[in-house]
């Protein structure tokens, strides 16, 4: 239960932090996150 609460607090902080970012900073992060799942297969190319 404690772990869930800690995760929820961290997630909440991240959401608030993200909301304060500028539009272009959000675009930068969104672009990186959208490609992150491909990093492992790309490492083998």
């Amino acid at each position, binding site marked *: 239960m404690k772990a869930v609460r800690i995760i929820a607090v961290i997630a909440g902080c991240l959401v608030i932090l993200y909301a304060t970012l500028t539009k272009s900073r959000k675009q930068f992060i969104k672009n990186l996150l959208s490609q992150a799942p491909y*990093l492992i297969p790309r490492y*083998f190319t």
Partner: protein
Amino acid sequence: MSDYDVIVIGAGIGGLCAGALLAHQGRKVLVLEQAERVGGCCSTYELNGYRIDIGASIIEFPQVINWAFERMGTTFRKEVDLIAVDPTFTARLHDGTEITFPIDLEKTKEEIRKLAPEDVRGWEAYAKEMDGFLKAALDGFFVTPARSLWDVCKLFAKTPSLLKYGSLFFGSYEGVLRKHLKNEKLLEALSFHSFYCGLPPAILPGHFSMIPYAEHAGIYYARGGMIGIPLGFQKCGQRKGMEVRLNATVEKVLVEDRTAKAVKLSDGTVISAKVIVSDINSKTLYTEMIDQNNLSWLARAGYKSYRYSMATPMIYLCLDYAPPLKDHHTLMTVPMQQMNDYWFDQYEKGRFPAEQFGILSWTTRSDPSLAPAGHHIIAVTLAPGPYRLVGTTWDKEKETIKQNVIKYLESKYLPGLRDHIVHADFSTPVDFERRLRSPEGAIYALRQDLTNAMMFRPSAKSKQIKRLYLVGASTHPGGGVPTVTASAMIASDLIAQYES
């Protein structure tokens, strides 16, 4: 017994430079090019007495290209007639304001003082940071392989000063500029350079923000057209017996036991070699030209996941007057946020408006011999063009778009333009694809964000197929004339190390 020591697929800058360097290692080299001329994106064609550059319009980082020539016992200047270009560019902002960036940094500072006195100190801080970063990057980054985490660690160990600039890699181009500069007009003037690396300022990694500064080390044009550079490498290679075959399209790379053995041409001819070097888009190479059974499932997923870089529609204008411009490069700019919005709201949604931003490359300003006496050429590099237009095709819309863009250029930048056009040619992303065998017209092959960089970009020494090497924009360090030259140096070093 193989027919050649090395076969190079593609006679772009990367292919010819690699071929020449390998010929200088004493290897028997054959370069196969599908087009009727060499150079790929860095090439020049002739039309009724005008010599028109297909893509690249200027040489930056000449010292990197010079390193390649020095390895062959000569110099860039000995092999290619270089014309110094000064100023680096003039930016014509959306509101008509103009700012010029001379090569001389002090003069540039004075220009900045006129437009944005509050940013003079910021410019100095930006210049200082970029100067330090460039020195470190040129030392360690350009010609060092980055195939694995270990390679990247070695790269930073070799040049520890790069660590000081680590934050540049994890921020954006826009973020770095905004850290130093506040004036929106100055930011607008420096924004378009992000598209030199294929992405808008918001998502291009921050280390590329060194480009506007790097131009102050000197930029050049090759007399007779940009094809002079690949021809320089070709000459060097041919002195050591390198053969170049034009109109020879490679269809397949033949692989046995996970080892590259030969290439098969479109006419059915099979030519064998001990080593195959590919200068074509690596996604095309691995997904279409190699039997998929030779690749691991993880690598197949990796190759498919790569996104092509942007395409750049270009209009080539042959004129019977001197256009009302000042410099070799005039940037037609819009505010930085508008460039970002264009990418997300227009480009990624398949739209291509006539109101454009981009570059006017007035090549005859630097080299009048490119056109008949009194005539001029402007190559107009437009904003990124989506490969797929929403609800229509480039072939259907080509003429309409061309006329609309010319009308817009006339109204905003080149008064009287339409009365002076002798010839206007429009190269769409689809035309680039057909002409250069560049999938989706991608001019930098693959996107150049962090997730497609260094060890995450296809490796110079194939991780899947033995005796297969990559050069060009789709391997480390990426797209651009100096960087693909660097890729050729990396590949030739690796071949010297592993294929003795």
